[in-house]
């Protein structure tokens, strides 16, 4: 931790609420996020002593200056009086491996020093955040006694594909809690939970990067903290090239899920079924921007995998699974289909291979990407004309398939 940061925290001494904003070159959007946070705290928690920490990864585009500069000139526009306690603002660089997880660690440390009651973290590239998010992420902790608040968003039916095809079905099946967006990125958590996170030595692993979200959610659920989810409305990010970071994103998230499976194997083997978690927030329909999907490219990547990665997959998958994949690889673009049950077996087989360590783990996870793209292409193709509600039902069916096939996972898990 930076010395100056520690001094600032010691000067503040205590805080009721802490808001963390991790950032890296987000000058374009962070101003809006900071404004929404300030307005939300002023409107919904005017009497609370609040601190906002921007944990920055060394931005060079003026992100830090933007955080310091942004103000809300007229609080009447958000229908509230001036807050009783002004919001303290701290901008600090974080240390360790560059990544979101390291930024969060700094926020957890601040929460511990300030003995904070409720904390929330929000992404710095959000374009759809509103002041209401503060209430929805903090109120369940501040007043209802929850320890962890996961977000629930209205998203485009083809958005969040790692969440929908792997992370949500798998964590729900393993730990028995239906947290719909376990890697949503915007969370609320108690100071007690923040302190608990700091007791774990994971800051040199993938948790320090994209693995932080699933790690936080899994620990909250697996360690028996009270968890709920809040409906936040639409989630719209700043535009970026999503294909550019699929590799690291995929491997870091999936490796964290599989690694946690090893850590909590005694727990998840005993879980028989999943239960819904308490929910907050008013549900409403949101108009979402259409997104373009290049199906040919994804199918092409899958076919290339079938042709060239067969030798690696043979060490992971059962022979009949391999044969089925080869058959799918021979299908035309029009007739392309990657069945749900096959996908479940693939995810479980890769989890088992990860656990056994029969292949170098990074190679194993990277070799899974063409399979993932094949499944996503099939999902997109089958749901081109479906409504968001129908797609949600399809995801529910996938979750049920994961739950039904859990005995297969337990049986093959050495």
């Amino acid at each position, binding site marked *: 931790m930076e010395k100056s940061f520690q001094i600032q925290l010691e000067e503040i001494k205590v805080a009721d609420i802490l808001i963390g904003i991790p950032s890296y070159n987000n000058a374009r959007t962070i101003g809006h996020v900071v404004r929404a946070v300030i307005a939300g705290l002023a409107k919904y928690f005017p009497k609370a002593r609040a601190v906002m920490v921007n944990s920055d990864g060394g931005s060079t585009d003026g992100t830090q200056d933007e955080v310091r500069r942004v103000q809300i000139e007229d609080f009447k526009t958000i229908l509230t009086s001036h807050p009783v306690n002004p919001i303290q603002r701290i901008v600090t660089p974080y240390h360790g491996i560059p990544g979101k997880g390291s930024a969060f660690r700094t926020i957890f440390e601040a929460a511990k020093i300030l003995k904070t009651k409720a904390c929330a973290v929000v992404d710095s590239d959000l374009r759809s955040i509103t002041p209401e998010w503060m209430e929805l992420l903090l109120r369940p902790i501040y007043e209802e006694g929850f320890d962890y608040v996961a977000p629930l968003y209205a998203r485009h039916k083809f958005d969040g594909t790692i969440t929908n095809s792997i992370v949500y079905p798998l964590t729900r099946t393993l730990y028995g809690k239906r947290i719909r967006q376990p890697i949503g990125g915007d969370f609320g958590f108690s100071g007690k939970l923040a302190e608990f996170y700091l007791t774990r030595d994971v800051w040199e692993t993938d948790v320090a990067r994209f693995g932080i979200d699933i790690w936080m959610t899994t620990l909250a659920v697996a360690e028996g903290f009270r968890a709920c989810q809040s409906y936040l409305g639409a989630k719209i990010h700043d535009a970026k090239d999503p294909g550019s970071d699929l590799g690291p994103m995929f491997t870091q998230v999936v490796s964290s899920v599989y690694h946690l499976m090893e850590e909590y194997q005694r727990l998840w083997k005993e879980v028989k079924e999943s239960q819904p978690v308490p929910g907050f927030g008013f549900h409403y329909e949101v108009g979402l921007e259409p997104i*373009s999907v290049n199906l040919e490219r994804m199918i092409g*990547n899958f076919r290339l995998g079938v042709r*060239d990665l067969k030798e690696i997959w043979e060490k992971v998958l059962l022979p009949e699974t391999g044969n089925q994949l080869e058959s799918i690889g021979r299908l035309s673009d029009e007739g392309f289909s990657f069945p749900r049950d096959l996908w479940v077996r693939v995810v479980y087989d890769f989890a088992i291979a990860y656990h056994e360590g029969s292949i170098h783990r990074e190679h194993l996870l*990277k070799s899974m990407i063409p399979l993932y793209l094949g499944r996503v292409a099939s999902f997109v193709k089958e749901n081109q004309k479906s409504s968001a509600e129908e797609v949600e039902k399809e995801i529910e069916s996938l979750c049920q398939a994961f739950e039904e096939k859990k005995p297969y996972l337990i049986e093959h898990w050495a």
Partner: protein
Amino acid sequence: MGEVWKVTITDSLNRFLGKVLEFLPNLLAMITILVVGFLIAWIFKKLLFRFLKAIQFDRVSRQWGLAEVLSKGGMTYSPANLLSRFFYWVIVFVTLILGINALEVAATQNLIAQFFNYLPHLFAAVIILVIGYLIAVFLGQATLIAAVNAQMESAKLLSRLVRWFLIAFSLTMALYQLGIAEKVITAAFSVIFGGIVLALAIAFGWGGRELAKDFLERLYKKNGKGDEKENHISHI
């Protein structure tokens, strides 16, 4: 006449007995060395095997592809078992050499001295070969997966090139270490390496025009200047 014959026989027997008595301690030393050496080899094998099991050497070998190579070669022992047996035989072999040396037979002394001088080179060469092979397999696989994920049609070819180049490189280093035709090896490697680079340059520039075109097109499109349909799915 009879006396002379008797003396001659007695002298001969005495000389033989003297030589036997002179040789006997060496023989006993050799037997002791062999017994102790075999015992050490056996204990070392057991300890090493347990140590390798404890550090999950078999699992690491599977990860690095060594177990697969052994299996393909018809080897039924696990890598941990094989390595402990290998060191057992190395100790047995060294024990035999030391045992023979203890006999102090002039003809074998020089040979043994030369052998011991050469032994470090032999070990270095074996280590270079094994490590070189493992790195070649590992990087070949990494290249294959990265190339498939980058949607390169020639992923397998590229992976094989990386693997064989590294195997050839480690083989060259091992032969150099053994001192076998050092100059010829260095020259041959330079020629082969230069040839590969030249062949690649020609293939990429002439035979692989389409591949180069495809690669550059994809790079251009990735930078947002092309008109191919982009994926705008947010994965998490």
